[in-house]
């Protein structure tokens, strides 16, 4: 932790602005060596939390101006990491960023490891654990809802919920401990009923949080969706139609093949991640059937399956096979009857069976898409879209800790109901508190350190 670290804080690609962030004891002296301010007198004051206009200049091997920049000085501890921080706002674009970063590294900074800035912020007490993790979620948010959840965590809303839970538990604990240590004193009793009520309260809160996890996870990671069906049913048209209306972000990772391109849709705030879009396009192009094995594999990866059938040509054995495969895998699915703009060869009531829900659409002409969006939202349980975002936990880690806290509180409750004595109750209650403490970093342990920092990425 002695090194001064630096990294590009903005995502790769071309943009109007790119930011290089430097944090550590050498940050100020490094910038002083490479920055040529427009207003020298003002720069001389080195006043914190000010923006200075100027140029980044390389002196060796010969003097070169790398870019015109805005530099912000933030003196620790009042900075993101708690250390001295310098941010260089330069023109976004691969080259200026690369050259300036290179220069900064030559001056003695080290390239930050993934998540190192946030790590320092956490270790310096500038963020608690759930906030540090929330930053990652803000960055990665793909839809407004996802952003909303992440921001509320960043503001400490999750922390508030956890703190209030802890307080309730501590109140019960305090009473139990007092009556154990001072048996002769007349302590204002907390009746059994009161304790049970409080425990039920806490269990209710945790249930809410656990329920929010599935939804929260979807908001954070997106709903993995696959579009399957025999060739030429219109999968590609459907994809295009959806993308036209609902495209969210396209992530283009340089140096990778087209196969790995992810397409995101934003449907009612939920990020729908269409997988194997390449496959979809390919099979259309080559009029090739994708094998059964491949179909099964795709289905297994998905959270949601969109099965497309052609109303104009009618249902064939193959279609039934596909539907059967999806049902066997027990995945959520929507049956889409496409090409209703053409003459129908499908008796919907008879052939599709009464139990199978289906939607009629025309991908080519954009008909029925609104109903499709609504159906997707319903499937995701968007009744919960109205859930307070503070109650949405998004991380596996949080889910785990809450599950354990729940178990301990349930043990407490059953111990109380079996009339076990107070000192047993305190064991389970304290265990519940420890589990909750893992979420905010109040519980120190080696395992936690390892697990949490795996997720962080460069620049943040």
């Amino acid at each position, binding site marked *: *932790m002695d090194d001064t670290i630096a990294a590009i804080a903005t995502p790769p690609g071309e943009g109007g602005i790119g930011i290089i962030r430097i944090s550590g004891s050498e940050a100020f002296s490094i910038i002083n060596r490479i920055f040529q301010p427009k207003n020298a007198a003002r720069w001389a004051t080195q006043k914190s939390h000010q923006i200075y206009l100027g140029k980044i200049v390389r002196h060796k091997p010969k003097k070169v101006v790398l870019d015109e920049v805005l530099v912000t000085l933030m003196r620790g501890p009042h900075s993101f990491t708690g250390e001295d921080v310098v941010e260089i706002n330069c023109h976004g674009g691969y080259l200026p960023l690369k050259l300036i970063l290179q220069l900064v590294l030559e001056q003695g900074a080290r390239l930050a490891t993934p998540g190192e800035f946030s790590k320092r912020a*956490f270790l310096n007490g500038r963020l608690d654990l759930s906030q540090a993790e929330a930053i990652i979620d803000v960055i990665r948010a793909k839809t407004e809802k996802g952003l909303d959840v992440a921001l509320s965590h960043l503001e400490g809303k999750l922390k508030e919920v956890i703190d209030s839970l802890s307080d309730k538990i501590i109140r019960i604990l305090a009473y139990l401990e007092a009556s154990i240590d001072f048996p002769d004193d007349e302590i204002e009793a907390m009746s059994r009923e009161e304790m049970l009520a409080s425990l039920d309260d806490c269990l209710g809160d945790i249930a809410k949080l656990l329920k929010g996890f599935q939804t929260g996870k979807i908001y954070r990671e997106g709903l993995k969706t696959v579009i399957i069906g025999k060739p030429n049913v219109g999968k590609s048209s459907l994809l295009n139609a959806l993308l036209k209306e609902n495209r969210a972000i396209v992530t283009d990772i340089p140096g990778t093949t087209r196969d790995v391109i992810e397409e995101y849709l934003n449907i009612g705030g939920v990020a729908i991640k269409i997988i194997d879009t390449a496959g979809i396009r390919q099979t259309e192009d080559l009029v090739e059937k994708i094998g059964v094995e491949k179909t099964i594999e795709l289905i297994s990866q998905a959270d949601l399956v969109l099965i497309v059938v052609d109303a104009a040509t009618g249902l064939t054995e193959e279609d039934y096979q596909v539907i059967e495969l999806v049902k066997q895998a027990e995945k959520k699915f929507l049956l889409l009857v496409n090409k209703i703009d053409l003459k129908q060869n499908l008796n919907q009531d008879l052939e599709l069976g009464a139990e199978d829900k289906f939607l009629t659409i025309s991908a080519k002409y954009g008909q029925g898409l609104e109903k499709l969006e609504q159906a997707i939202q319903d499937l995701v349980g968007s009744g919960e879209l109205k859930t307070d975002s503070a109650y949405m936990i998004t991380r596996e880690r949080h889910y785990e800790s809450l599950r354990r806290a729940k178990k301990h509180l349930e043990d407490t409750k059953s111990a109380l109901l079996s009339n076990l004595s107070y000192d047993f109750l305190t*064991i389970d209650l304290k265990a519940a508190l420890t589990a909750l403490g893992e979420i905010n970093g*109040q519980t120190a342990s080696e395992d936690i350190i390892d697990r949490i920092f795996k997720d962080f990425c460069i620049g943040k």
Partner: protein
Amino acid sequence: METYNAGTYDVIVIGAGHAGCEAALAAARMGCKTLVLTLSIDQIALMPCNPSIGGPAKGHLVREIDALGGQMGINIDHSYIQIRMLNTGKGPAVHALRAQADKWLYQRIMIDTLEKEPNLTVKQATVVGLLVKNGRVQGVITQTGAVFGCRAIVLTTGTYLLGKIIIGDVSYSGGPNGQFAATELSTSLRDLGLELGRFKTGTPMRVDKRTVDFSKLIEQPGDSSLYFSFTSKNINRPNISCWLTYTNERTHQIIRNNLHRSPLYSGMIKGVGPRYCPSIEDKVVRFPDKPSHQVFLELEGLNTQEVYMQGLSTSLPEDVQVELLHTIKGLEKAEIMRAGYAIEYDYLIPTQLKLTLECKKIAGLFSAGQINGTSGYEEAAAQGLIAGINAALQVKEKEPFILKRSEAYIGVLIDDLVTKGTNEPYRMLTSRAEYRLILRQDNADLRLTEKGYELGLITEERYQAFLKKKEQISKEIKRFEETVVSPQNQALQKMFAEKNSTELKSGTTLLELLRRPELSYADLAAIYPPETELSNDVTEQVEIQIKYEGYIKKQMAQIEQFEKLEKKRLSPDLNYENITGLSREAQQKLAKFKPESIGQASRISGVSPADINVLLIYLEQQRRKAVQKDD
């Protein structure tokens, strides 16, 4: 002053209160030539305050002292006038013995024990200075010019250092109970570079039994014969009652009217008092809505008329004490025999001590008891025992004796004091122990007697008896594991019906049955008795270990986690300034305390979990660097 050479000893114990007695006896029993110096031989083992030993957590300490071979348990068993088990309605981890002592008898027996102990010399003297050379103790010097040489000193001066008695507007130099204070030793300690703080504590008035109207009070009887010591049996002791009454609004009004004459509120008392033992004026001010407070009347002995007024600790002026007493039901005509008073005293800031209770700065100087900022006879005795043991071990050049938080309340006590310090007189509470279920008062011997034996404080005879008990317990548990019971057993069915226990559908073991909360060992043993009759001690252990196995396992798992951090050692040479990422406060505290492990570091106030995470990362980085170097 002319000095003279008065002799050389291995260990010198300064002060013969509860800490001093344990220290002196332990050192002597471990084979060291020991000298104990006291301001007054008549005040050895004095109980200046509550005439009781035990209670939650305190009772646990006494059992542990006894399990290690200390004296307090045996002493109280021979001198109590009432004994009760508290918290019987709660689980075994918090059952606590509490006894009321015949004060005078308690002292006499202890004085006798000290005087008759081989290897131990008792002298009356006032120590005025410690002799230290090159950071190591050499001896002590007394007021009358005697110079005693030694290799280790145990300081157990209680509340006598620069003691000041305060009653209302009157104050004077003095130790507890009308004794004189030790005035020069404090200066000597400061000159040696030790830091002292100032605390206060108080005691209530004593009242003449004959002037109390007991018919107006509520009686609280004692229990059947119980003992603190694992070695006691069949000692015939009385079991008298104590009595309860309450203060009322008139009492409180008098107190409020006279607060300006109360030393605490008039600013006369600088020391900080204990939260857990507040004076009556504290209680009235802090809890103004409470209409009444409890007052327990405890007899101080069989051959005295003095009654201790528990709950009325005070330093209000004497005239106010008289007035408020007369407003209390049953005490309308009560006569005060000794007035209540507050005492202010110097104490040694305990973070200057190692876990062995030796001073970090001065080799060979150990400190134990109220001088370390604790309150209570039991807390003092526990420290005294450990300090005496470690002084002896040092003289013998052996490894020191340290108990962990997961092994004993004594471990919790010393770790708390030395690692966290204390800003009020420290009192042991069960909630301070993380592993309460493991540290029960019933299993103190199973946890500690083996260690006591290895130290030489447990006789061979006692040790053999202990081993036998252990064997009986494990055998009986095994029998329960292996004995299968059949649903056909009539007696069993009858018992189930009586106890409202579910009928058996298939065969099961006695062990499984005992796990049911509604069944006891006695119930099952009546139908399936053991071959040889077993004592209560043994059957109690069998019952607890089987019934609470699930919870005991949970605690053991928690202890394992705890041990992980305790095992991560921190070198005393570690430069905390080099570790960036630590908060300033943590850096300062860690540099000052020099904790021995990450576990201990986590308990220092000002060191947060985040700081611990930093230390863990740092240690891991160091470890990796070392590994890389080897590659």
